[in-house]
């Protein structure tokens, strides 16, 4: 009852804001952390670009975008995230919601957004359940769309595609038929399916799994794990790391002078600050990523360069809040309304050429996975620079390098 009353009040107040010619978009993210900084930075770029061009056109009337900064603090506290989304809806009268990073927090925020029937464009969480909710209960969850990244199952497809490419290079350079792979996955829910898939798929790809090591996501010391991996003779360390342990792995592999090369998901490795955080030791560490100065789409390079010029660092995937706002703009201008129920079918049919890829949505409102479109890119740290190397057919890719043996 209280929730219904608040919903009515929120809708009435947001209608009043719309009448004043301002579209309020809440950017939700952990603002004290890199993820939130990129959420906000990408959104600022979209806002400034749109407002400078006169705003969003709705049936001949132009509306300016106003961003609301919603600090979710979700890395530290999931309740903080639900409080933040509740606040931007009820107090700040947000019309649309964009952002989120940590799956547990985004799942909770998704519930709040759906209670208020607000369009929520995800820009950080990969858990499949977010899209599965849409499929299983469309009427309630239809307001959710995932703009970045692709869902966890599709992340795995990209990982194995790149792994196959690296495996071929190792076979050619090291004259070995069966490259040895050590799985190094932080102990977390999101890595469970990936570890099982790796253990099953790698032997089928003619690669030998020499062992599985699972440190804590918050571990700062992996010397024992790396010592064991070194002893196993692994050629590739298949990383599945989202926490600071990714920095420890990069740094300590370098300090130990390991001959194995790291490939996989290393969220810290995607950040511009990674090289410094790893004290310049993370040579040849590679990771799945989203942005680089390569022609994923005609918009990618101009966006990355403009972002670097403005913020003095490269964007991470969370900066695809830029694409989320542009998708919203296209949908609003096409539907000539800001009503969520009328925008949903328009977004479902959209094909948006964004900065991170070319986006289309499936029945779960997840991105349709395709190499060269939404599958992302692979990058490797070489002499302090993040060098893109996959997919090879994209203009701007460079060779993948291995440690000298």
């Amino acid at each position, binding site marked *: 009852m209280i929730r219904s009353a608040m919903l009515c009040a929120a809708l009435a107040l947001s209608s009043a804001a719309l009448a004043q010619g301002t579209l309020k978009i809440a950017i939700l993210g952990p603002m004290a952390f890199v993820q939130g900084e990129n959420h906000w930075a990408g959104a600022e770029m979209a806002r400034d670009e749109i407002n400078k061009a006169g705003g969003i056109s709705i049936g001949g009337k132009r509306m300016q975008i106003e961003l609301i900064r919603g600090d979710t603090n979700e890395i530290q506290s999931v309740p903080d995230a639900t409080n933040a989304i509740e606040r931007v809806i009820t107090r700040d009268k947000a019309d649309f919601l964009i952002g989120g990073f940590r799956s547990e927090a985004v799942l909770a925020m998704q519930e709040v957004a759906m209670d208020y029937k607000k369009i929520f464009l995800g820009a950080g969480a990969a858990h499949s359940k977010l899209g599965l909710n849409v499929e299983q209960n469309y009427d309630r969850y239809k307001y959710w769309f995932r703009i970045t990244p692709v869902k966890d199952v599709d992340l795995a497809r990209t990982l194995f595609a790149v792994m196959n490419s690296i495996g071929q290079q190792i076979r050619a350079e090291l004259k070995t038929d069966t490259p040895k792979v050590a799985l190094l996955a932080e102990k977390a829910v999101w890595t469970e399916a990936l570890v099982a898939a790796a253990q099953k798929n790698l032997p089928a790809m003619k690669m030998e799994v020499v*062992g599985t090591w699972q440190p804590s996501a918050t571990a700062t010391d992996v*010397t024992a794990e790396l010592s064991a991996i070194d002893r196993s003779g692994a050629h590739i360390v298949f990383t599945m790391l989202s926490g600071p342990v990714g920095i420890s792995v990069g740094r300590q592999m370098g300090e130990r002078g390991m001959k194995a090369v790291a490939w996989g998901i290393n969220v810290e490795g995607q950040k511009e600050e990674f090289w410094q955080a790893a004290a310049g030791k993370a040579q040849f560490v590679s990771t799945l990523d989203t942005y680089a100065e390569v022609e994923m789409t005609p918009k990618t390079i101009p966006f990355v360069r403009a972002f670097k010029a403005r913020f003095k660092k490269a964007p991470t995937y969370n900066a695809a809040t830029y694409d989320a706002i542009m998708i919203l703009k296209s949908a609003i201008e096409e539907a000539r309304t800001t009503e969520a129920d009328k925008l949903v079918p328009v977004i479902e049919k959209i094909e948006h050429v964004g900065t991170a890829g070319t986006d289309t949505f499936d029945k779960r409102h997840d991105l349709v996975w395709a190499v060269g479109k939404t599958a992302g890119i692979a990058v490797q740290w070489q002499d302090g620079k993040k060098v893109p190397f996959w997919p090879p057919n994209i203009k701007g890719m460079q060779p993948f390098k291995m440690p000298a043996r």
Partner: protein
Amino acid sequence: MLQDILVTGLVNGGVYALLAVGFSLIFGVARIVNIAHTAFYMLAAYCFYALQVKGGLGFVPAAAISVVAVTLLSVLCYRLVIEPVREHEAAVLIATIALALIFQELMLFSFGGHYLGIPSTLEGGIRVLGVSIPYQRLLILVVAAAMLAIVWFVLYRTRLGLAIRATANDLEVANLMGMNVQRIAMATVALSVALAAVAGVVVAPVFVVDPFMWLAPLVTMLAIVVLGGLGSMKGSLIGALVIGYVEAITVFALPAGAYLKGAVALAIMVAVLLVRPEGLFGVAFEEER
């Protein structure tokens, strides 16, 4: 595999010893359970980062300023926060938790939630028994040994050490004998936090500096001092090595359960508490009274 366990356990044990000895000292002497101990370690790491990486200072001046600044801060905190509630153990516990959280939030506000790296003081490494060991980790071992020697010298070869030990034995009698027990407690806090600050300066280059870096070592350190015996320096040293080896054995024997190494350390702590509440080298609670 045996040589990996031997070398890895020793090196990691050295890191833990450096942290645990200071904590044990302050409890053994002043009976203060200073939960903020590793928060001072975190502050020293940030201070060192700011001076060396951002300020461009060399290792020695940056390390010296960091250790002195954090030690002075600890004295201030003792006078303002701990001393007024020192008679109430629960209040001290809560006050030091609050201090640690305040330091954490201050660092989060000042530096953001970014993970920061400090370049190694010594580059390169050697292979021992086929195991690669960076020089920085060997430096930690050397510093840990030197710190233990210095603490031993202060406690057993100086008047201050005599006063500290007398206070530790019986605070009331020491007070009646004319010793300024408050000042001795303050000196102990300073000595203890100085050790944490040295650990921050020496250990931080092999880890990652972030506002939450004080939490994980705090848990491990508690396990070590309980295992070795609350207040026993010798116990802390041996406890640190035991935990270092237990963690190494866990990782090597159970690779897929590497995340359990912290839990195994805590399980040992609980087991020791059940069987021998005073720890391996601690003073039995009954004997204290």
